[in-house]
């Protein structure tokens, strides 16, 4: 299964978090939680991009 939807979903959430922080409508504690969530998503994105063995399989 292509990785596109996983990648897009995580990127959309990170963008949403950035917007929330920019809007400054949450408490300091909630803002800290959002930032941690964003960092976690970015790290998952990098891991997802590294997944796979790059095998070449021949079918006669």
């Amino acid at each position: 299964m292509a990785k596109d939807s996983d990648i897009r979903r995580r990127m959309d959430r990170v963008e949403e978090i950035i917007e929330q922080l920019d809007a400054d409508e949450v408490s300091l504690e909630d803002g800290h939680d959002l930032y941690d969530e964003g960092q976690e998503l970015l790290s998952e994105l990098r891991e997802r991009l590294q997944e796979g063995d790059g095998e070449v399989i021949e079918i006669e």
Partner: protein
Amino acid sequence: MAEAPDTEGQAVEPEAGEVLSVSQLNDRIASVVEDAPALDGVRCIGEVTDLHQNSTALYFTLTDGDAELPCMIWANRYRNMEADLEDGTEVILEGDIDYWTEGGKIDLKPWEVIVVGDGDQAAAVERLRSELEERGWFDDEQKQRPPAFPERVGVVTSLRGDARYDIQSAIHEQDPTVDILVKDATVQGSEAPTSIANGIHHLDRSEDVDSIIVGRGGGSDSNLQAFNTERVAEAIFTANTPIVTAIGHTDDRLIADRVADMAAITPTAAGEYIAKSRNDFLASEIDPLEQQLDTAYETFEQDHEHEQELTEAVEEATAPEGLPPVYYKAAIVVLVLLLLLITALWLGVI
């Protein structure tokens, strides 16, 4: 048809054990070809394919579907002919068979060209093209975009051809994590349409294949006819998986290219298109997104720190100086009691 010449008598008999240089052997072949009366002034009918020209000469392949022969007409001679050749034109050529010694190649050099009409093969391809266009098989609405980050790409091509290695290298250059499933197919000759179509069906049925490349290296037009057949066109059109063609052809005349979701000129270009570059994506999308997040949080944190400092300062400023109110109240009570006691003593109550 003229009888084959007895060339043995004309050629120089090789001495036993003699080792010839390539030039010597080519000279010997040239002398056999040039001295063979059966190869002088031959007339041949066939279809013009793979036509190209430069300022010096016009080159093409004459084919009857089963066999082909390279041909060359000098540019100045062609200008004086009334013939207007293009791919698919059926012609009768009259000329000599010539052997090019340096390149070791044989060709027909016609001095006369008679145009018979459009070739059967070209006419059949044209009919199919019109029919498929009417059915809407070439419409943009039918195209689907391959995913940018496939986990597995299927490739239909010859396992023995160079195209598969070009495709593999290009895909793994973009993203080394992509699995590649190569389905062997015969890409030219009479069995090619069925072989290619079966390869597409096979990979399309594999649920974990995200996109498919149908490819082969370059070749003369007559070797590409499998990609102009309804069988291959139908396999591409009915596939649920996005299909990219890489047939090694520079124009858009091939029907397979028109039906496919995307047509790349070379196998390498197809490999580069089918998988997005992971490094480029990290550098252009993910790294900037992380920077944006860091910046947004820093600004957010600074704003809240100022806010907190301000609140504390306001609380400090509004707080009364001296002892807490409870001490004042206690002192007042004590003073009142003392006053009552003094008054009572003064009045002599106590």
